[in-house]
């Protein structure tokens, strides 16, 4: 009897293709992603993309130029010449991990074997990358300056360009709140979008179509609901982070409000897009779980972007999570003015508009025609 029931259950289980995808494919994808992020798998397969470090050569001597050229031969670092102001600005904005400042008197210091007037100014939000850069540069200095055994330690001064303070959040907190908030929002919105499929199954969608209502109105109303819920959810989450962990949400409240609106729009359109690509609730459950977890993993909700290999950082830009999290870092950590955060907000809006347009076409095809 047990065997008969077991056989039936297995037959039913394996007849559900979406269930199989969630059971087997999703863990395989997640293992692969985490292996690339933590396990150094990418290094075995191919050379990693070098980390871009800005270099400001104030010494401008043959010695300093030669050293820069030699350091540039390291496979993991690419030194990009820059003016000091521009270099520091780019690091502050999170565009580059660090700027190496070679001060006047560098070649002179080598000659007299004094402390080297060099400084590495970095973005502390990219702590892991910074440690790699610091170690590599120190080793590079020792090797190329021929001080391998003579000097046990090359002093490479490091300075964080963005300092923690009472008015600034710790990057870990920004990552935790921002990353988790967006990922959970995606799940909530997929569920709200699923209401459209419930309406289809219950027959109320058909009744809506019978009434003098445009199909697009139905879609936009559903998206509007999702957006209001998104705004409320994000607001509650940030208020909680403020009360519980002291996240300074009032530091730049106008930027935060606009970013929340942009994220809510992008996530709502993503929810409607998901719903428009499927025909049943079951399909939605399987597909949304896979896509949301995948997008959150790639986009930095689960693992900080800076810990990911370069190729994963490149594909992170396809996810809503990435732009949202980066926006939160700009507000709470980098403390950028709104004008510098606007491009990220614009990308979120563009994602939202694009997905809404695609959803409109798919909605007509997949939902209405079979309502």
């Amino acid at each position: 009897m047990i065997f008969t029931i077991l056989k039936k259950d297995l037959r039913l289980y394996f007849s559900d293709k979406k269930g199989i995808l969630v059971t087997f494919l999703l863990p395989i994808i997640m293992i692969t992603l985490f292996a690339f992020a933590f396990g150094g798998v990418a290094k075995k397969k191919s050379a990693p993309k070098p980390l871009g470090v800005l270099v400001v050569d104030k010494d401008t001597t043959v010695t300093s130029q030669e050293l820069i050229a030699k350091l540039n031969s390291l496979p993991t670092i690419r030194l990009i010449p820059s003016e000091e102001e521009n270099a520091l600005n780019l690091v502050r904005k999170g565009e580059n991990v660090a700027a190496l400042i070679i001060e006047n008197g560098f070649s002179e210091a080598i000659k007299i074997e004094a402390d080297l007037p060099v400084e590495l100014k970095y973005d502390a939000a990219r702590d892991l990358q910074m440690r790699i850069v610091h170690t590599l540069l120190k080793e590079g200095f020792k090797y190329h300056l021929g001080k391998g055994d003579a000097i046990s330690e090359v002093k490479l001064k490091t300075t964080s360009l963005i300092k923690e303070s009472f008015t600034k959040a710790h990057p870990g907190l920004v990552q935790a709140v921002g990353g988790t908030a967006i990922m959970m929002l995606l799940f909530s919105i997929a569920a709200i979008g699923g209401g459209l499929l419930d309406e289809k199954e219950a027959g109320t969608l058909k009744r809506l179509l019978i009434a003098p209502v445009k199909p697009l109105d139905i879609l936009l109303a559903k998206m509007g609901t999702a957006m209001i819920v998104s705004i409320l959810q994000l607001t509650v989450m940030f208020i909680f982070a403020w009360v519980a962990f002291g996240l300074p949400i009032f530091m730049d409240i106008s930027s935060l409000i606009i970013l929340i609106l942009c994220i809510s729009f992008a996530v709502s359109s993503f929810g409607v897009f998901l719903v428009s690509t499927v025909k049943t609730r079951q399909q939605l459950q399987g597909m949304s779980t896979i896509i949301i977890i995948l997008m959150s993993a790639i986009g930095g909700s689960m693992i900080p972007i800076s810990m990911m290999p370069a190729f994963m950082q490149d594909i992170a830009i396809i996810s809503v999570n990435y732009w949202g999290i980066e926006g939160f870092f700009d507000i709470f950590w980098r403390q950028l003015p709104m004008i510098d955060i606007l491009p990220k907000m614009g990308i979120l809006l563009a994602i939202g508009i694009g997905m809404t347009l695609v959803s409109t076409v798919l909605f007509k095809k997949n939902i209405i025609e079979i309502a």
Partner: protein
Amino acid sequence: MIQVQNLSKSFQAIKAVDDISFTIKKGEIFGLLGPNGAGKSTTLNMMSAILKSDEGTIQMDGNTIKGHSKECKHLIGVVPQEISLYEDLSAYKNLLFWGNLYGIPSKELKDRIHTTLELIGLLDRKNDLIKTYSGGMKRRINIAAALLHQPKVLFMDEPTVGIDPQSRNHIFEVIETLNKQGMTIVYTTHYMEEVERLCDRIAIIDSGKIIAQGTQAQLKELVPTKESIQFEFSFLSESNVNQLRERLPYIMTQNKSKLIVQSTVKELSKIITVCNELQLNIKDIQLNKVNLEAIFLSLTGKQLRD
């Protein structure tokens, strides 16, 4: 009121509606009778302007649906086959929502909800959630939601499926009341008793085609005898039926082990003799007056509930 001409609709290889034409007069109850999958709902969906036809035209009150769907949607009320209501809202809030979609002014809508709930006999339960209603009560609210904008025509797609006889009677009374008030009603069903009770004219539909239409009297004329005898055998093969047809001059329709013979009771003994000679074991005999079921059987060779 409504003119349907050469209407066709296919879903991939399946022709759901195949070149049908009919006219519905103002103030009549028009029945679309046919078994499940005959094409009734597809026809109604096209008439409700939510499904595009492949071919043909539908005219409603002088307007062609194609290009005038918004105007036509205000003319019609549709009672879908499914209970298309929000289970977690009260009857009143459901009606308020559906009424608002038609742009009815707030005060007028409230009055109309009151009148409609009174008509369907659920005024005292208006604040209860739909999920607490019985199947029959839900069906009545399902009808009410289609009446708020005071349509000229009401399409009812199998509105009595799965309900008790008492609720069914209540729905019939509502339909008769609405019709007396001048509303044109298009009623689809596979229950011939409902059509016989309610409809002035009937179109019988099978496999997407209208196989007969007219008043009940006109349809009954299609069958030569006014009575039919239904035999049920222990076993009945097609060759048995052919043998019977060779020896008896009546129209016969086979359905598994049942055989309906369009004949009168006077011929009964003769038929039984032939059956005995062919060694057919008769289990049951029923004498029926010709009804829509018998007409459908004689026209299609199938029962309505097949």
